[in-house]
């Protein structure tokens, strides 16, 4: 594997995970939704995008899955985002209405395991534990070979990541973003002041999950396969750590968090010069390090590396102040 190829591959993961992190930041950083099932929404996006792009499953292909529409990537990607959004509407609509934060966490946590069970065991859906493979490389108009394609795919990946970053910034610096943050700070008071806390929270969750779905759809473009092993509960955790380390309520922080956790820790540990017998120790070691980093950050620097930004308003004191009666 050449260095360029390796770097480009890393870049693709970076783009995909940045989108994932931005979505979680919108849900939890701004609206305080404890979505412990977040990675399942990424998976749904990936699966739907895959079965939109693949042809119908046949006895020959050896896989069974629903749909199989052989549609172009753009449509499939949007479908992935929509699917994740719809699942968020369903789940959020049920449990965000009157539950307190930790019970919302339980409900979503349970959802991720139930989905994992069902997707893994019910093969007609997405080919069960073996997963869906053989997704054709999206947008491959020029019939590039593997290395060239990885470099090429950086362009749509980067564009999507930049677009979604811009959207996240707009959402944050708006009356909507302000209302979300008030909701996060003190829900009871926000409700007293007329904020429809359910609708605000649900919209944030749906938007964040659409981000996850789009990230999944984008990433299956170069992963070309998706199986339950890729989205176990531990994977949710890595994104959570990235968002918290980077800085909650802060889109730049999410980008930095992805850089630190996934690129440095994730890839960095892979490059450790370990003898072959010990290679299998790397995944659990990585898990331990990520868990420890998360707990440490939550204790010593809970605001993350880049704390939330604050708009400074340019107000000038008026000459005739009505202050003193």
């Amino acid at each position, binding site marked *: 594997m050449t260095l360029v190829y390796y770097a480009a591959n890393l870049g693709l993961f970076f783009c995909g995970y940045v989108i994932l992190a931005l979505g979680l930041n919108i849900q939890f950083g701004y609206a305080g939704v404890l979505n412990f099932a977040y990675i399942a929404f990424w998976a749904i996006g990936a699966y739907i995008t895959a079965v939109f792009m693949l042809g119908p499953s046949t006895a020959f292909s050896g896989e069974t899955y629903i749909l199989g529409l052989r549609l172009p990537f753009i449509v499939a990607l949007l479908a992935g985002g929509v699917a994740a959004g719809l699942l968020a509407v369903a789940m959020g609509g049920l449990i965000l209405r009157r539950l307190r934060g930790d019970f919302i966490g339980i409900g979503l946590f349970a959802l991720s395991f139930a989905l994992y069970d069902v997707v893994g065991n019910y093969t007609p859906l997405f080919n069960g534990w073996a997963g869906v493979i053989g997704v054709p490389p999206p947008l491959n108009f020029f019939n590039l070979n593997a290395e060239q394609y990885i470099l090429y795919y950086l362009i749509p990946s980067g564009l999507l990541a930049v677009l979604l970053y811009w959207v996240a910034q707009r959402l944050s610096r708006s*009356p909507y973003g*302000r209302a979300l943050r008030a909701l996060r700070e003190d829900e009871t008071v926000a409700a007293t002041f007329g904020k429809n806390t359910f609708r605000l929270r649900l919209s944030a969750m749906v938007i964040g999950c659409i981000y996850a779905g789009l990230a999944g759809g984008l990433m299956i473009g170069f992963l070309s396969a998706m199986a339950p092993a890729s989205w176990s509960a531990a994977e949710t955790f890595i994104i959570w750590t990235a968002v918290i380390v980077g800085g909650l309520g802060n889109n730049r922080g999410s980008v930095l968090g992805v850089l630190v956790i996934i690129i440095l820790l994730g890839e960095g540990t892979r490059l450790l010069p370990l003898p072959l017998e010990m290679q299998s120790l790397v995944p659990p070691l990585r898990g331990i390090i990520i868990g420890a980093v998360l707990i440490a950050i939550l204790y010593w620097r809970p605001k993350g590396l880049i704390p939330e930004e604050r708009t400074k*308003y340019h107000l*000038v004191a008026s000459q005739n102040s*009505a202050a003193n009666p």
Partner: protein
Amino acid sequence: MNPSGDILTVTDLKHAYGGVEALSGCTLAVKRGSITAVIGPNGAGKTTLVNVVSGVEPLQHGEVSFDGIDIGNWPAYMFARRGLLRSFQLPREFGGLSVVDNLLVVAQDVGLENPFSALFQRAAARRMEASLLDRVRGLLQEVGLFEARNQYARELSGGQKRLLELARAMIVEPKLVILDEPMAGVNPVLIERVGQLIQVWNSRGVTFLIVEHKLEVVEAICGYVIVMANGMRLAAGTMRELRANPAVVSAYLGVAR
């Protein structure tokens, strides 16, 4: 919606928490344009009354009428939108927002609080904020928080947080503001300041209902006082009338003074 008369009426309010009765048939009225106090010993049900009337606790039994409308089954967010506001015993500012944002967020146009507006109606949002910021500036100067306008609300002192809470109530141009022990933990200089602010705002047409323990404050600014005990209204009137009322004296006033 009668222009004079009572802005808030409460009829036979009963409320219980897990078997403990906090309100046992409370009936009272608040006159429009007044500064009315609610006093009474601990456990009289004052905070429960405020919670039920402001929608924080669901109505269990009885009727509550605000501005002539029955608000018994209003959801929490309706109260503020219709002009009924309350504060809490401990200041509950939005800590992670700046002082200005604390005011903007409660007064901003609710119609713009959605993702589509965030993406496509930036200009309209800017215009709305610009016009709001005029009032924000005026209010911050009035309460004396202008210098602290860009600080995080959680960084303010206790007294400043109390002032912020008042400013936040006033920025939405309410009809009735219910204050739950606004002077608790506030130093004497600030007490006077808060009293003055309430009187100024009252002169502009805002009705105040204040739950308060400090009788000197009640005496100074409240024209009408309601005494509660055992979950019910015991008596009501001016402080002078109440002092002459033997039931009130024995229940509450006599010991203190």
